[in-house]
C-alpha cells in the first residue's frame, strides 16, 4: 500500500490534474452565478472532470516501464487514481451550489469517464508516452459537439437538462457497464487467456482509429 502511494505520488501529473479540478470548481461557480450559461458550464465541468482523469495514464518513460515486472500492477494503481479524480470532480459537480438537480450527471460522468480511461489506457499500452493530452482534447471537443448540433436540430441532448429521460439513462447505463467491464478486461490479460487476446486486439483497433500511434512523442 505504501509502495502504491509512493508510486502514484510520483507517476501521476497531479498539478495539471488538480488544476483541472480547480477549473471544475470555477465552472460550477459560473453556472451558479449566471443562469444563462448553466447548461454549458455543467457540461464543461463534466467534460473537464473526465479529461483530467485521462491524464493519469501519462508516462514519459512508458517504453521502459512497460517492460518492467510492475507494469500491470502500476496500471491498476493508475486506474484507481483515475477513479479518484472522477469521484472528486463528480462530487464537486453534484454538490456545488446551483439552480437545478444534478444527480443524473453521475451516470454521464461514470460512462464518459470509463470510456476516456479506456482510450487513455489503450494509448499507454501502445506505448504512447502521454496519451492524456490528445484524449483530453478529444473528449472536450466531442463532448461539446452535441450542444452545437442541438442549436439547429432537435435531436435531444444526451446530457441531463436537468434530468435524463429513461431512454437516455438506459443508454448511459449500458455505455458505463460496457466500458468499465472493457477496462477491467483490458487491464487483466489473464481473463483473455494470454496475450495477445481479444482485449488487446480491440485496443489496437481503438488506438489506430484515434490516431494515437501518430501522436506518439508529441506533448
Amino acid at each position: 500500500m505504501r509502495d502504491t502511494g509512493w508510486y502514484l505520488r510520483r507517476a501521476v501529473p497531479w498539478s495539471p490534474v488538480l488544476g483541472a479540478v480547480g477549473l471544475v470548481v470555477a465552472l460550477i461557480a459560473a453556472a451558479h452565478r449566471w443562469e444563462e450559461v448553466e447548461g454549458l458550464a455543467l457540461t464543461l465541468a463534466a467534460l473537464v472532470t473526465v479529461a483530467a482523469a485521462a491524464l493519469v495514464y501519462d508516462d514519459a518513460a512508458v517504453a521502459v516501464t512497460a517492460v518492467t515486472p510492475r507494469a500491470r500492477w502500476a496500471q491498476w494503481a493508475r486506474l484507481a487514481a483515475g477513479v479518484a479524480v472522477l469521484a472528486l470532480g463528480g462530487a464537486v459537480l453534484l454538490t456545488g451550489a446551483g439552480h437545478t438537480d444534478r444527480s443524473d450527471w453521475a451516470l454521464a460522468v461514470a460512462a464518459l469517464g470509463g470510456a476516456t480511461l479506456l482510450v487513455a489506457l489503450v494509448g499507454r499500452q501502445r506505448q504512447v508516452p502521454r496519451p492524456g493530452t490528445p484524449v483530453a482534447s478529444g473528449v472536450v471537443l466531442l463532448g461539446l459537439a452535441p450542444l452545437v448540433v442541438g442549436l439547429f436540430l432537435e435531436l435531444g441532448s444526451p446530457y441531463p437538462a436537468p434530468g435524463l429521460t429513461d431512454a437516455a439513462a438506459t443508454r448511459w447505463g449500458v455505455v458505463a457497464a460496457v466500458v468499465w467491464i472493457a477496462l477491467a478486461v483490458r487491464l487483466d490479460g489473464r481473463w483473455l487467456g494470454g496475450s495477445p487476446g481479444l482485449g488487446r486486439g480491440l485496443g489496437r483497433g481503438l488506438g489506430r482509429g484515434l490516431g494515437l500511434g501518430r501522436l506518439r512523442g508529441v506533448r
Partner: protein
Amino acid sequence: MYSTLPARSSASLTSMVAIEARRFARHPLFLLGVVIALALEAWVFFADGVTVSEDTTHAIDMLSHPIIPAFFIGLTSLVVAARLTRSTEVSAEAMGTAPGTEAQRTLAVAGACLVPFVAGVAWLAELFILLQIRGVHPYELWFGTMNDLHVWSILVALGPVACLGGAVLGVLVGRWLRFPGAPAVAVVVVAIGTMVGSLPYSYTDQGHLRVWVPWAMWHTGTMSDGEAWEGVPGYAQAVLTGNPATYLLYALALCALAVAGAVWHDRTARTARLRLVCWGLVALVVALYLTTAFTGIEEMIVSRPIPPLEG
C-alpha cells in the same frame, strides 16, 4: 512520420510554412473537423428551413450558421495548431535540432493557419451554393433586408476568421502553455469565456459592450416556438447592436496579436521593433473594440415575423 527541415539557419520561412501547412492539412483531427462542418452545414440547411406553402420551403437563420465552422474547424484547429507548435520543440529540447529559430518556427505554424482559414472560406462557398438550391425567406435578416457590408462582415468574422483565430490561438497556447492538457483547457476557457463574457448582458442597454469577446453573437435566431423573448417577437429574428464591419477588423487584429504574442515567447526575437508591433496591435485592438461597441447598429434590428405554414 512528419517531415522536417534540417537544422540550418538558411531554411527559408516560406519552405517551413509550406511544410507546416501540409502537416496541418493532413492532420486527422483537422480533416475530421472540416468534414463534419461541411456535412453538418448541409444537414442543418435542409432540416432547419421554414415551410410557408405546400411546395415552398425557405432557408432561415443564415447569420447563425457560422457557429458550425467556428466550432468544428476553429476549435479543432486550436488543438491541432497547439500540437504542431509543440511537436518541433520536443526534438529541439531533446537533441537541439530543429529548423530555424523558435520565432521562425512559430511564424511557420502561424502561416500554416491559413489552411483552416481556407477551410472556413470553403464552408462559406458551400453556404452560397446551398442557397442556390433553396433561397432565404423574404423577411430573413440577410442581403436586401439589412446593410450588405454588415452581412458580409458577420459571415466572414464568425466563419473563416474564427477558423483562423482558433488556429492562431492554438499557436499561442502551444508556445506558452506546456502543462499536459493545455489545448483542452484552452478550448474550455474559450467556450465558457465567450458565453459568460457576452450572453448575460447581450440583450440589455449595455449589449453593445459584448463585442470584446473573440466570437460575439450577432444574430438571435428565429423565435420558432412563437414566443417573444428578450424583446424579439414570436417568429421574428434580430441582429444585435454594434458595428459588424469593424468587428471583422477587430477579430483580425486579435489574430495578429496572438501571433505576435507567440513570437514574443522567443527571447532572442524580443527586439524594439517587435515590442512596437505588440503595443501597436494592443492599441489597435482597443480602438477597434471601442469603434465596434459605439458605432454601427444602434438599435436591435428586428425582422418581420416568419411564421411556418399551419398544420
